[in-house]
């Protein structure tokens, strides 16, 4: 099987090369030589259409119309090749767990590049900035934005912005100035370069790349806060990179003499304009998408298409206005998630999710393969030991310094401080990737005499970070973690107690109001529920959220009834009216449906540790979920745990409440008879629930409890089912009141 795919892959590339050779051979003119990119549709093709030459001797039954199809054919072929490479890479899982997929794809790119170079004597296919920025990058970023865990992202927004803006500026400045200093000191020999060019180079090499980060962090499972920091930083730093790049590019064009305070101030202002403008464009398009999906009920079959088109348009619009395109498309994805998921039909939502993943994964594969291929091109290689080594050193060292410095400052203001190991992973995980390469390839050779040097350096930096750091990331994390953990195995008591501590901390945090509802967030939630949902969501979508509640209501009503029945039976209280009331509601569902027969007796000597490990509730802090993944679509599995805990808690609360009230019942019986006169419609005979009667519903603590639970429902951000659980208590209570009022 492996052999077959390898052969197929090689065969495809050979086919590509031979096709080209054949084409060149049969070409009349020599116009074919410089068509490097599959994405650029040359004008020569249509003109030189084979078979339409002026001299036709007779009718040709079959003609070889290569030029007719050249451009789309090559594109399709390359996509196929990239897909097959991915298949080859994924053949061996042991390999992919050691070496990240991106590194392997680059290696395959090298092989392919080598083959093509060997066949063509020049590198005909490279990753050009146009193709990269217009056709390969947008879907990757849209995918990132659409699947972004919003709550996590926004709660860590401050830290992410600090790293993205200040961190990137720091990196750019230090790398640029460091290199300039070393150049002045003569470490790089004689190259035609200046301070501004160094700063420009610094700014484009400073940015952490989202594509590379995701690709590597897929393998290394880190906690979600750390992940969102690095990921968020890699997405948001585009705002800074674009500004710095354009500013320094303009400065280089102007020449050093023209720079004065005005220009610098303009540069700073342009940062704000670019960043906020880009985000604004994204938000506007998100609104458009949401509004559009509100009306597409009759064309559900092409609904998904709108998302992609409008997302792409947001990217292009920002690019057109010279704002940050990445920020635009990220915010478009982030803001529209909720509304389009609510508005669109379920199948459309699934379609969007899967197509998004397909496109993003495909683009990423193509990007890495081409990054590899682009290297096999002697024309761009300029080696300058000093420059290259110093760049590598500086980006590495200054990243560490920058992250540690910023984290030290941030930890003073954060609730949950970032630990040492997190900082190490964050520094080490600052990978550079294709964005840097794309930017450097856009440089104008006339202004930047040393463009090839920069290109070579960028390529080496990308390979170093993606491959070396990618490969060593996992061992590094394991090593650091092992070093800190105790060598001895924990005792049972310690394990239990650790978990107890975690639950305790979470509870105290909730009680003291540390995490979660704060004033601004509550305000935003209220605003959003009232206005935005009304404006952007279909009326039926708003209602169907209630529909789900209703279904759960029915199920829980059954549960509640059977519970009441069960409790009453155990308390053995005589109720004459009971049978009447409960007769028409025959519950077939037992509340204790979870206690199944335990047939799993693992072995004679069962391992208590193992059992405990498996079954202890994980609680909020323990969940090391990888919220965003390029290749996996996961559903939330913790609902069972939450449901179990919730039911148990409510049950015990209800029991204690009931036992408290029932203990009071006999003494108050007489009084209720008197109160019968006041509220004739409510009172009718006694029963265990008569104590309810003399308590006004509004002052009833449990009802008040429930009301506030329901209002704070909207604060729950997770899946709809998680918001439903508090309602079941409501239903239990309603049940009591119903029974009680119907007596």
């Amino acid at each position, binding site marked *: 099987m492996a052999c077959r795919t390898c052969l197929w892959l090689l065969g495809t590339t050979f086919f590509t090369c031979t096709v080209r050779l054949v084409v060149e051979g049969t070409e009349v003119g020599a116009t074919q030589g410089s068509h490097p990119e599959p994405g650029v549709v040359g004008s020569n093709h249509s003109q030189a259409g084979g078979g339409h030459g002026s001299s036709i001797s007779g009718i040709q039954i079959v003609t070889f119309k290569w030029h007719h199809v050249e451009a789309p054919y090559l594109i399709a072929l390359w996509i196929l090749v990239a897909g097959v490479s991915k298949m080859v890479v994924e053949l061996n899982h042991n390999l992919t767990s050691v070496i990240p997929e991106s590194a392997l794809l680059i290696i395959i790119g090298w092989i392919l590049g080598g083959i093509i170079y060997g066949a063509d004597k020049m590198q005909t296919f490279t990753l050009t900035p146009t193709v990269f920025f217009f056709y390969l990058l947008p879907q990757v970023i849209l995918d990132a934005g659409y699947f972004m865990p919003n709550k996590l992202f926004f709660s860590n927004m401050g830290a992410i912005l600090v790293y993205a803006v200040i961190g990137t500026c720091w990196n750019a400045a230090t790398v640029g100035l460091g290199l300039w200093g070393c150049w002045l000191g003569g470490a790089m020999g004689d190259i035609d370069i200046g301070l501004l060019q160094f700063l420009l180079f610094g700014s484009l090499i400073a940015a952490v790349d989202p594509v590379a980060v995701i690709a590597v962090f897929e393998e290394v499972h880190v906690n979600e806060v750390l992940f969102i920091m690095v990921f968020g930083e890699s997405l948001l730093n585009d705002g800074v990179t674009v500004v710095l790049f354009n500013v320094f590019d303009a400065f280089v064009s102007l020449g050093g003499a023209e720079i004065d305070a005005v220009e610098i101030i303009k540069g700073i202002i342009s940062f704000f304009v670019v960043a906020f403008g880009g985000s604004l464009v994204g938000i506007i398009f998100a609104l458009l998408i949401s509004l559009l999906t509100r009306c597409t009920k009759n064309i559900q079959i092409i609904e998904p298409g709108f998302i992609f088109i409008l997302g792409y348009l947001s990217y292009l619009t920002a690019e057109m206005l010279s704002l940050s395109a990445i920020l635009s498309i990220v915010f478009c994805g982030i803001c529209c998630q909720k509304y389009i998921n609510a508005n669109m039909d379920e199948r459309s939502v699934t379609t969007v999710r899967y197509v998004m993943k397909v496109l993003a994964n495909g683009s990423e594969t193509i990007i890495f393969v081409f990054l590899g291929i682009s290297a096999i091109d002697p024309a761009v290689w300029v080696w300058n030991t000093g420059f290259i080594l110093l760049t590598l050193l500086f980006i590495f060292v200054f990243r560490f310094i920058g992250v540690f410095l910023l984290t030290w400052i941030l930890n003073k203001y954060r609730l949950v401080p970032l630990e040492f190991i997190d900082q190490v992973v964050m520094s080490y995980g600052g990978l550079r990737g294709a964005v840097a390469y794309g930017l450097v390839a856009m440089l104008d050779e006339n202004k930047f005499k040393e463009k090839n040097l920069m290109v070579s350096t960028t390529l080496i930096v990308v390979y170093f970070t993606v491959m070396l750091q990618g490969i060593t990331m996992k061992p590094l994390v394991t090593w650091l973690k092992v070093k800190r953990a105790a060598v001895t195995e924990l005792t049972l008591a310690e394990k*239990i107690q650790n978990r107890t501590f975690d639950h305790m901390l979470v509870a105290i945090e909730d009680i003291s109001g540390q995490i979660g509802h704060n004033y601004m967030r509550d305000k935003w939630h209220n605003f959003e529920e009232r206005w935005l949902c009304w404006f952007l969501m279909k009326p039926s979508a708003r209602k169907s959220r209630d529909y789900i509640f209703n279904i759960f209501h029915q199920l829980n009503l059954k549960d509640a009834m059977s519970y009441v029945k069960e409790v009453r039976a155990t308390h053995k209280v005589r109720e004459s009216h009971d049978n009447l009331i409960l007769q028409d509601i025959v519950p077939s569902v037992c509340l204790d449906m979870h206690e199944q027969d335990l047939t799993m007796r693992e072995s004679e000597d069962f391992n208590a540790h193992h059992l405990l490990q498996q079954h202890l*509730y994980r609680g909020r802090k323990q969940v090391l979920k990888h919220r965003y993944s390029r290749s996996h679509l996961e559903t939330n599995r913790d609902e069972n745990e939450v449901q179990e805990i919730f039911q148990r808690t409510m049950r015990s609360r209800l029991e204690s409440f009931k036992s408290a009230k029932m203990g009071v019942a006999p003494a108050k019986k007489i009084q209720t008879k008197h109160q019968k006169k006041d509220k004739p419609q409510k009172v009718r005979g006694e029963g265990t629930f008569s104590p309810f009667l003399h308590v006004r519903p509004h002052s009833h603590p449990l009802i008040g409890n429930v009301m506030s639970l329901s209002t704070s429902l909207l604060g729950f951000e997770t899946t709809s089912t998680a918001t439903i659980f508090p309602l079941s208590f409501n239903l239990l209570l309603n049940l009591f009141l119903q029974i009680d009022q119907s007596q």
Partner: protein
Amino acid sequence: MGSRASTLLREEEIEEIKKETGFSHSQITRLYSRFTSLDKGENGTLSREDFQRIPELAINPLGDRIINAFFPEGEDQVNFRGFMRTLAHFRPIEDNEKNKDPIASEPLNSRSNKLLFAFRLYDLDRDDKISRDELLQVLRMMVGVNISDEQLGSIADRTIQEADQNGDNSISFNEFIKVLEKVDVEQKMSIRFLH
């Protein structure tokens, strides 16, 4: 107590709480506003229902036990002082406090007080011993429904076996401390309260 409006916290009270618990002025005011927002009855004290109103506690396995821990023995209401006293257990231990004058009474957030708080979560009847039943109750709250009672019982037995030193088949407070001597209690039972 009584009918005094509980919307204002007096300076003297803040000072007293500061001395007793070690919280800073701004932390105390912040937590006071949290206290009043929980206090729906506006009578200056919190009842169990006020705590139960916090939705997240309903999905915390130890939620009700922690709520209980706020209420002193046999009482149903907790005032702000009591609230802060309980929360003080979770203050991080600062370095300068470790060198404090040994004559002064032990701060609420010392290691042994933290452990005492955790111990009391198990030991409901306050007999200074965690019996097998008490341990079983807590275990049952913390595991899923797929463990049978027998299995849970064996886990409880083995846990007690590991910790018990004087053979009375229950865990006393000293044994509890000994078992957890390698655990970084200071870090595991501390929250950074906002400044």
